[in-house]
């Protein structure tokens, strides 16, 4: 009896593992709302696509304007009516984006396990696990430690500090959905602190589709030089 149970458990784990490994492509409706420090708002709505093998985040924006943004390596390309309007540098590469973490099932530790940060302390409070990730010792490294809380292997919240321990940003990951063996937060709340003032951000995902067949060109938008 116990042997049978072990065999079934083994195949279940193998099945779930295979499922999560095979998630390589994500498409979702996305809404980004920002309340700036001066109480003005930015509101953006569209569709996001990401293929972790291609490593390009493609945003088909419908509001405020019909635009396409492509984040590839350290550049963001902006297109209007199929014409390249501008390109600018970005410190956030697609492989460090939330979409990559989600598909890699690295969301529980905010992708820090594969970064230069080191987990230096772990504490348990009730059903929550709190991990302190210590920043790399480099004189010019701009950020300090990062505190991450998770519950049932789901990332709950993140606090990013500066080098003096002052909070720069707090983020909450919530309304999880479980698709194709991966955990996906469908709402992210964030507060960014600037001394005495702060800005707020809400990111929402809807109509999430994993491993959309075909549509290869939609996931591999060919960027061109201006």
């Amino acid at each position, binding site marked *: 009896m116990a042997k049978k149970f072990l065999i079934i458990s083994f195949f279940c784990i193998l099945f779930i593992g295979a499922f999560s490994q095979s998630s390589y492509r994500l498409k979702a409706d*996305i809404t*980004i*709302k*920002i*309340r*700036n*420090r*001066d*109480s*003005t*708002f*930015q*509101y*953006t709505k569209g569709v996001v696509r990401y293929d972790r093998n291609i490593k390009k985040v493609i*945003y088909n*924006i*419908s*509001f*405020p*304007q*019909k635009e396409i*943004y492509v984040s590839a390596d350290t550049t*963001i390309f902006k297109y209007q009516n199929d014409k390249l309007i501008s390109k*600018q*540098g*970005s*410190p*956030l590469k697609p492989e460090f*984006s*939330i979409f990559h973490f989600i598909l890699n099932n690295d969301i529980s530790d905010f992708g820090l396990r594969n970064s230069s940060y080191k987990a*230096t*302390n772990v*504490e348990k*409070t009730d059903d929550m696990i*709190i991990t*302190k990730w*210590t920043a790399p010792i480099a004189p*010019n490294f*701009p*950020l300090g*430690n990062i*505190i*991450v*809380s998770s519950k049932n292997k789901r990332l709950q*919240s993140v*606090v990013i500090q*500066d080098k003096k321990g002052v*909070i*720069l940003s707090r983020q*909450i990951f919530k309304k999880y959905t479980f698709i194709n063996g991966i955990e996906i937060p469908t709402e*992210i*709340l*964030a507060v*960014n602190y*600037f001394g005495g003032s702060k*800005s*707020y*951000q*809400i*990111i929402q995902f809807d109509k999430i589709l994993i491993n959309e067949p075909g549509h290869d060109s939609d996931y591999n938008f060919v960027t061109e030089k201006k």
Partner: protein
Amino acid sequence: MKQTILKSFSLFLAVLMFSFQTFAFSTKTSTAITENEIQSVIGFDESEIYTAFAEVSDLDQYLAQNDGVTYTDIDQENNTLLTGISSSTTLPFSASSDELVLGIPSFFWGCVFGWVGLLVVYLVLENKEQTKKALYGCIASTVVSVVIYVAVFAAAATTTTTYTY
């Protein structure tokens, strides 16, 4: 002679022990999770964030019912929905016109990273005001460096003069 060596060695060991203790203490405090840090990560008031966006709830509903409309479309029909709303797009976790690169003030980008920081702010934000702040940071760090250099040079010159006398 032997006594002097022993005394020096004892003093060296005492200093070594003291510095090791200090180092151990500082390591512990930097990696330990404080009660404040626990509260900062679990005691997060979500309602504060939702309340901050109450003013755009009408636009939320309108966009949910009218898929594909643009800012220009709404501006022509019902522009009260767009009060206080910018016509520029923003991307998740990116720096908006009001934001900073990685949440770090532009002044510090210029101050710490010099012209490289200035370039990062210019390229990422494309914002004249923030670039100006980075430039001020760059100038400030250069001035401080020059002052330190002059002070050290003057101190060295004074020391040399003392030796001459």
